[in-house]
């Protein structure tokens, strides 16, 4: 160990820490380093004395009293305002603003969605304004009521505009399938599923003319009205009726002309 290493070694000693064997051996052979070692030991001793001398020093009592006073004042402020610091107040204020804005946006979106989906068509009676899509019937639908169900009609029934009976005649027994819950196609506004807002399927027959006279008169407008009729009324239009359920009611849509005359009827299930 040379003098440079010795100095580096002993300067790194902690207070009370003994130098290594190499440093002691070097100090024994080098007078300058021996003095250096002694000086460092004296310095450590003096630092230890200073540390012990200052060990009893504490903050004056009035500091604690002052802090307690400040603490009480701060506590009162917190209890009064509910906030601790300007930073916290600012952060909470910003959070409250953001939360309020988010709540308003959510409420607006919900209101728009509900308005679009629930709003009835103001000019139309019950049952009018539904969008009925064409399409082939889903296999397996209405398995358990096949006796009363007419044959499925793959053609569409679009009752947004009252249809002329002469366009719907004929083929009694054909049933149109309404998919009221289906996704609307482009440009087609999705209407309410039914007056009750339900989003399920309805199966309807084609329209049957109610009587020949009215059928022959041209129709320039009208309304469709949902009514209930005895199931036995199906028989009048050549549809099969289960005698055991003949007293039950079935839903029907009746086309009324502007003159108030019923022009056509279809049965809905």
């Amino acid at each position, binding site marked *: 160990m040379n003098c440079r290493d010795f*100095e*580096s070694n002993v*300067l*790194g000693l*902690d*207070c009370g820490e003994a130098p290594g064997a190499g440093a002691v051996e070097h100090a024994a052979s080098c007078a300058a380093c021996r003095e*250096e070692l002694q*000086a*460092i030991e004296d*310095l*450590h001793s*003096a*630092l230890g*004395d*200073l*540390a012990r*001398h*200052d*060990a*009893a*020093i*504490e*903050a*004056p009592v009035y*500091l*604690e009293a*002052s*802090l*307690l006073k*400040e*603490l*009480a004042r*701060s*506590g009162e402020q*917190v209890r009064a305002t509910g906030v*601790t*610091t300007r*930073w916290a107040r600012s952060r909470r204020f910003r959070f409250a603003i953001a939360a309020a804005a988010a709540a308003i946006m959510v409420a607006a979106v919900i209101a728009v969605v509900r308005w679009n989906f629930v709003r009835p068509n103001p000019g139309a009676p019950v049952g009018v304004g539904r969008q009925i899509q064409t399409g082939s019937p889903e296999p397996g639908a209405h398995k358990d009521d096949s006796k009363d169900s007419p044959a499925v009609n793959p053609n569409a029934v679009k009752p947004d505009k009252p249809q002329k009976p002469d366009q719907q005649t004929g083929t009694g027994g054909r049933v149109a399938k309404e998919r009221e819950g289906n996704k609307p196609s482009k440009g087609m506004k999705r209407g309410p599923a039914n007056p009750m807002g339900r989003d399920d399927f309805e199966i309807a027959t084609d329209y049957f003319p109610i009587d020949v006279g009215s059928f022959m008169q041209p129709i320039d407008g009208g309304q469709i009205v949902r009514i209930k009729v005895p199931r036995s009324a199906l028989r009048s239009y050549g549809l099969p009726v289960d005698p055991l359920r003949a007293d039950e009611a079935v839903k029907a849509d009746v086309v009324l002309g502007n003159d108030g005359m019923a022009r056509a009827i279809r049965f809905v299930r």
Partner: protein
Amino acid sequence: MGEDLIDLSRLDDVALLQLARRGHDGAFLTLYRRRQAKVYRFSMQMSGSASIADDVTQEVFLALMRQPGRYDPERGSLEAFLYGVARNHVLRRLGADRRYVPISDDQGESGESLDQPYQDDPHTEMARAETVESVRRAILSLPEHYREVVVLCDLHEMSYAEASAALGCAVGTVRSRLHRARKMLLEKLRPAAEQEDEPDGVKSARCVV
């Protein structure tokens, strides 16, 4: 309700601070009483001024009370954090008012707090007191970044790692600064002894010149 039944003296610093954050005044007071002496002593030894130590200690604990979230337990102990805050306040005060350092030989305001009653042999105690004061002056005359490592490592017996956490620098930096600071202290304390031991050597040198 339940917090009032806790023996606060058994809780560590972090637990006390968490209680204090929830408005437990007793927890904060316990924390203050546990840590105030070291903070005050550090401020005094760094500045040599009792009034600065007063102000700094108050500022440190007010900051802890108002912004307890500034302390991150993952970055070190609360003690190291308090030292770091105290150090920043001391350096700010010293930078704002350089009149306090280096301190003069007279006791002044700092002498009032630093004087301790002597209990042993009066001569020995007097010599020790002189040594203590000369070392204190030597420390106060060091540049600040050397002074703080001496105060933390030699007077407050902190490890290099703890000092590095308090000062916000690397452990190697603390070590090298401490070596340099001790060497400077040796140089500052040596001339007085050498002047007493070798007065004739100086005279003879002057004669030669």
